[in-house]
């Protein structure tokens, strides 16, 4: 009995993972055919799969449990980001202090502004923590969210939105405000829109992807160091 249950569960996992991959690939193909930026495969997959999961009356925990394999691949994917970092290590060495200063400033600004706005507009501490972590790459943000009493799935959603906005409008906005160098564009989008933004600007140039992953990595490290102090401090100031 237990054996058939296990077999069923494995079958279900396989089915759900294949469906998720298939739906994502379908939208990825559509996007490369239609070449429209708004046709973001991630966003559309989430909408279609959410609708399916609700229609089947499947609890989210069940879907998430069965597709755990995909979620656990985020960690090796983050490790893989070390490759572009390695390729541009020498360029970066010269600018390290500038970049550290810049991203530290960015982390302070983004955490304090989103804390102030969230406490003011929504007034739910859990949501305030979750939203302030939205520029950090998912696996790191999720472990920070747990440690700082945020909510993991709100954090995940906020991360995707931040990534989506940056990936979709970031390059056009930067061109519009006359920020045109690959270094500045890559850093800005990597710092604000983490691996999602970086994965999107990879296609523009290698320089973009190098600075993007550098920004995402340094910002994540800085956030991991700063947020355990800054977030409680902001709560203290705002209460």
């Amino acid at each position, binding site marked *: 009995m237990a054996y058939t249950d296990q077999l069923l569960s494995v079958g279900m996992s396989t089915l759900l993972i294949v469906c*998720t991959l298939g739906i994502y690939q379908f939208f990825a193909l559509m996007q490369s055919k239609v070449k429209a930026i708004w046709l973001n495969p991630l966003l559309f997959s989430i909408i279609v799969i*959410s609708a399916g999961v609700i229609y089947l009356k499947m609890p989210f925990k069940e879907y*998430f449990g069965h597709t755990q394999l995909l979620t656990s691949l985020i960690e090796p994917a983050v*490790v893989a980001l070390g490759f572009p970092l*390695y390729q541009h290590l020498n360029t970066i060495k010269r600018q390290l202090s500038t970049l550290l200063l810049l991203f530290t400033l960015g982390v302070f600004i983004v955490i304090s502004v989103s804390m102030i706005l969230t406490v003011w507009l*929504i007034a739910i501490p859990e949501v305030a923590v979750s939203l302030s972590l*939205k520029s950090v790459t998912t696996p790191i943000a999720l472990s920070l969210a747990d440690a700082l009493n945020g909510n993991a799935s709100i954090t995940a959603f906020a991360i*995707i939105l931040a990534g989506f906005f940056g990936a979709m409008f970031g390059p056009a906005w930067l061109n519009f405000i006359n920020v045109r160098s690959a270094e500045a564009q890559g850093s800005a989008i990597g710092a*604000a829109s983490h691996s999602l933004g970086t994965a999107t600007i990879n296609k523009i140039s290698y320089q973009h992807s190098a600075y993007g992953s550098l920004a995402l990595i340094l910002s*994540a490290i800085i956030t991991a160091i700063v947020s355990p102090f800054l977030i409680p401090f902001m709560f203290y100031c705002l209460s």
Partner: protein
Amino acid sequence: MKDVIYSILAIAGCVLIGKFIAYTLGGLPSSLYGLICFTLLLHFKVLSADKIKSSIEWIMKNMIVCFVPAGVGIIEHFDLIKQHGFAIVFIIFITTFLLITVIGVLFELKIRRQNSTQTTENLSE
């Protein structure tokens, strides 16, 4: 095919080292330690970058699908979205663009200043 297996082992090794460091030292999340370890091993040529390169390109192209299950988690928070959805999207939108603008503009100014000092140096030479 050999290169793919090499890449998988290299990345898996770094994930494990990252977990070990996070477990013993704490502080940063394990994937960050793994990333730093991967960079250093490549930099000091312990790992061969040539063998890994094409696998990395494939990972970069396809990694976004890993975010889908976490994103579907939003269906658990319809009440929150109904009540505060607009404010949440507004806050994320504003702060994301604020950050993009601040970092983009400051870095661009710095690069331009560097370039102009470099040109004057070149001219004086």
